[in-house]
């Protein structure tokens, strides 16, 4: 009889352990996951051109975004021989600043790494297009 009693206690205790973990695991979703990027709520995020031949020096990122490229029709025009006509787009999605490469020939680099899919960036990140380097501030 005591053996059965101890067995029940043992199993109940283990159950308690896992109930605790279950409670924690339920709410862990919002605690992990990747970089939420720059939250733009109310705060201005700017794109600053650090090096490169361009007329624009800094621009406040607007919600619909800016297309950067060599074409005269680009929102931010850069005279860079290594840039494509419409090279990349920097915009705001759900309050995050996102960089899209628009199928450019030489690629778009965020912090020195080539990006092929839409990438979240944060303040202090650099975006390189050809020989032109822009920083998110």
């Amino acid at each position: 009889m005591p053996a059965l009693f101890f067995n029940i206690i043992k199993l109940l205790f283990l159950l308690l352990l896992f109930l605790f973990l279950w409670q924690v695991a339920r709410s862990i979703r919002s605690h992990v996951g990747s970089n939420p990027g720059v939250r733009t709520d109310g705060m201005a995020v700017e794109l600053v051109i650090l090096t490169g031949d361009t007329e624009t020096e800094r621009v406040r990122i607007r919600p619909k975004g800016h297309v950067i490229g060599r074409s005269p029709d680009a929102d931010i025009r850069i005279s860079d021989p290594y840039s494509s006509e419409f090279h990349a787009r920097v915009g705001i999605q759900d309050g995050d600043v996102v960089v899209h490469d628009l199928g450019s020939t030489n690629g778009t680099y965020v912090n020195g790494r080539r990006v092929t899919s839409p990438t979240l960036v944060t303040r202090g990140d650099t975006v390189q297009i050809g020989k032109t380097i822009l920083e998110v501030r």
Partner: protein
Amino acid sequence: MTRRAEAGLIVAACLLAAIGVAIVEFTQGNWLDAQVALTFLAFAAAFGGVYLAVIRWAPGASSLLLPLAAFLTAIGFIEIYRLDSHLAALQRWWLLVAAAAGALVLWALRDAGVSVLRRYRYVILAIGIGLLLLPLLPDSWLVYGATVNGSRLWVRIDIPGASRVMSFQPGEVAKVLITIFLASYLAERAEAMSVVSRKIGPFEIPEPRHLGPVVVAAVAAFLVLVYQRDLGASLLLFGIFVGMLYIATGRSFYVVTGAALVVIAGWTALVSFDHVQRRIEAWLDPFGHFSEAGYQTVQGLFAMGSGALTGSGIGLGRPDLIPAAATDFIFAAVAEEMGLAGSLAVLTGFSLLIAVGFGIALRSRERFRKYLAGGLMLVIGLQAFIIIAGVLRLMPITGLTLPFMSYGGSSLVTNMAIIALLLRVSHEERT
């Protein structure tokens, strides 16, 4: 999760500790006594205290770190209590000291934030290295090093007038200080270090001068191994260096080089030190060395094997047969009495804690905070991995404490300080 839910989980963890102690009392044929209440009060005071400190000085902090730390501490404490109630009484005091240390960290950083640590990074590094070397002090001094179980890790202080000796492991604190230094060093250098200058085969090689830190790390870890004869600390230290370089640069090159250096250093250690040799032999063939070096490992394996799926029940196994069951081998003791289910609960607890910690690092926007959170999580994660893998015979056994669970004041205080720093980082980077 709300602060309220967090408080609920903390109370639940404190209750778990008290229930565990009550079960131990039952199985020993005793009725409920003051120990159960004392345990609950000590846990509630410790974690409740840190919780209040969080509300006061870091209200935006992650709400999952403290409950998980309390959970792991509770399971470890139950097993310590079951092994030696005198040790458990000491551990209760250590828990209070650790909580005070955690609250102190939160208080000290309340205005300036963690970035103030960057300003003092060379002081921090100097203290860290000093602490690491402290156990090498000669025996005749007032503060002196002591050799325990073949490793020179302990420092003892003779308190004049009293016959008491205070002892602690400075290496525990040192690894946190070194992590803080590395985080601030890398926050400035990482970009340069991730620039690729050439390629050899599939590996992108950074400029040679950026290899300096890796080599320094390897040398420092090797010195610890040679002079303090401590495999675990040396491996942990090196793992932290390499892991943080990887976090900061994202270059697998550093990991590959690091692994290669571990193999080379390990081989050198194997052929030149007999204590390393004995460890490896005891690992490969513990049953053949049952009466000597393999004894501990074998007892651990027996314990885990007899635990089976749900364990013998708390207080009903024989974990006291394992040498160092309350410290290095606490995982085997848990596996014996709470079974596979209990040990999986421990592993889950650690995994969740590590996930939350790396989540904080991932979401940090500022480099220093990112590397600090990642590095601190590496300290806990790697340490847990190295010692659990040693107990499971996945790799040679190296003497390290299991964070939060093992008996030991230095370890508990350090881990609580780590949690406090992580809480602070998550407060500053709240999203």
